[in-house]
């Protein structure tokens, strides 16, 4: 046992730059594969509902808007999302219709503002040619 064994290390850091980050003013970079919030590329989605089935938090809801045009509505409830990215893994299309972005400041005061939905016409599975005019779903 020695007295003041920690002291040299402490004094060494007295005039060094702090290791902490002044967070809301200075932000850290997230790594490349960071899992943020999921979002949809509606032009490639074939509405197979694999993501809805595998989502552990039941945060994805897909409903058919109209029968005639094969129009679907997908709602992602980000207030329930646990950011596991299983929806991206389950997505069978290439390129993937589901993707994760890099946002991490996703807190909100109102859970209702966290809901995001897309209305789109189903893309046809790969064998058939792509639809001529994919109706881009704008997030509402």
């Amino acid at each position, binding site marked *: *046992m020695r007295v003041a064994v920690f002291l040299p290390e402490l004094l060494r850091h007295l005039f060094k730059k702090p290791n902490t980050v002044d967070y809301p003013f200075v932000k850290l970079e997230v790594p490349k*594969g960071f*899992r943020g919030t999921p979002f949809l590329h509606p032009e490639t989605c074939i509405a197979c509902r694999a993501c809805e089935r595998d989502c552990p938090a039941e945060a994805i809801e897909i409903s058919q808007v109209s029968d005639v045009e094969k129009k679907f509505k997908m709602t992602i409830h980000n207030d329930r999302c646990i950011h596991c990215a299983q929806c991206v893994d389950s997505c069978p299309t290439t390129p993937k219709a589901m993707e994760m972005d890099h946002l991490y400041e996703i807190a909100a005061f109102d859970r209702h503002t966290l809901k995001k939905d897309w209305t789109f016409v189903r893309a046809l599975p790969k064998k058939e040619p792509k639809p001529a005019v994919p109706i881009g779903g704008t997030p509402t």
Partner: protein
Amino acid sequence: MKFQIPIGPQHPALKEPISLRMTVEGEVIRDVDIRLGYNHRGMEKLAEQKNWIQNIYLTERICGICSHSHATCYVQGVEKLMEIEAPRRGLYIRYLVSELERIHSHLLWLGVAGHEAGFDSFFMYTWRDREVVMDLLEMISGNRVHYAMNTIGGVRRDLDGGQIQKCLDGLVVLKQRSEFYFKIGANEPTFVGRLAGVGYLSKETALALCAVGPTTRASGIARDVRRDDPHAVYDEVPFDVCTADSCDVLGRTVVRIKELFESYKICEYLLKNLPSGDIAVKAPKKAKPNEVVSRYEAPRGENIHYIKSNGTDKPERLKVRAPTLANYPATVEMLRNGFIADIPLIFAAIDPCICCAERTVELVDARSGAESVVRFSDLRALAEKRAPHRIAKGNVPWPL
């Protein structure tokens, strides 16, 4: 004069809710009663209603600190049930994350032990250096806490050369820092004075009370699932089981720091001998009726999952035993005849993960006090009465 003091459910020494009732005489503890069930989450019942894939994420959320260990334990069981075998590369990456998680958990524990002993500088420095391993995990998996690396039949993300190099660089830094903390932990007189001789658990008691993990290893019992039941990669990786004979909190600290060095060794081995190939195989949706016992050495001790399947895509029964639950009876023994001042240290020395132990069943949050029970809805009504202007208008029920 004997009186009872309540430690918890809310107490600064406890990061999660549990209720310990101490009967004390002056500063000396005479009797201890542990009350669980403050907030049960009904995971075992819930698991019977979710499919195999969804349950990976459910088991991962049993615990925050050892999230990977529960998911791995579950996944290696399910792989046996489905009779598939994960590719070598996938296994290497899976257990690399396990060992990185052990490093992060033990560094976290060191900091917590420092904080419980009032050694805040130690706490700050260990947690600063824990950021190194946290950043590595974030780089590998995409998240700092819930790595979500496991999938049935392998892992979900591959490692590239740059990441391997970054991991090796990080391990060098960590090794150097851990040596420094070992020196501090063994030499700072006030710290050693708090740890040595505190929370004595003899070898016989540890055996009788079925304690697990570093708690038993500090009592001189070399018991480690990685060695006794060498699942997956552990039969090819060289490592030692660390023990200590002092049977006290100091011994548990020493065991954990030694395990850090073993984990660095294992990580380096896994990174340098990473085989090439696939990282996952495709898993079926359903499993034949069978049963399996899956064991895994979590940072806190043996983790055991008993999984029964019934031919559908959902498990028939998923029994989870987290290491913390197994250590509670031993904790009671350790606390008896100790000082009040040692409660946080002794309790922290088993590295309690209360959310692991409290996963069984509860649908309504209820607080179990000895005298009264207050439901969450009552509290909410009370809060609304006190601040009527705060009531949110237009509540919308889920599902919409």
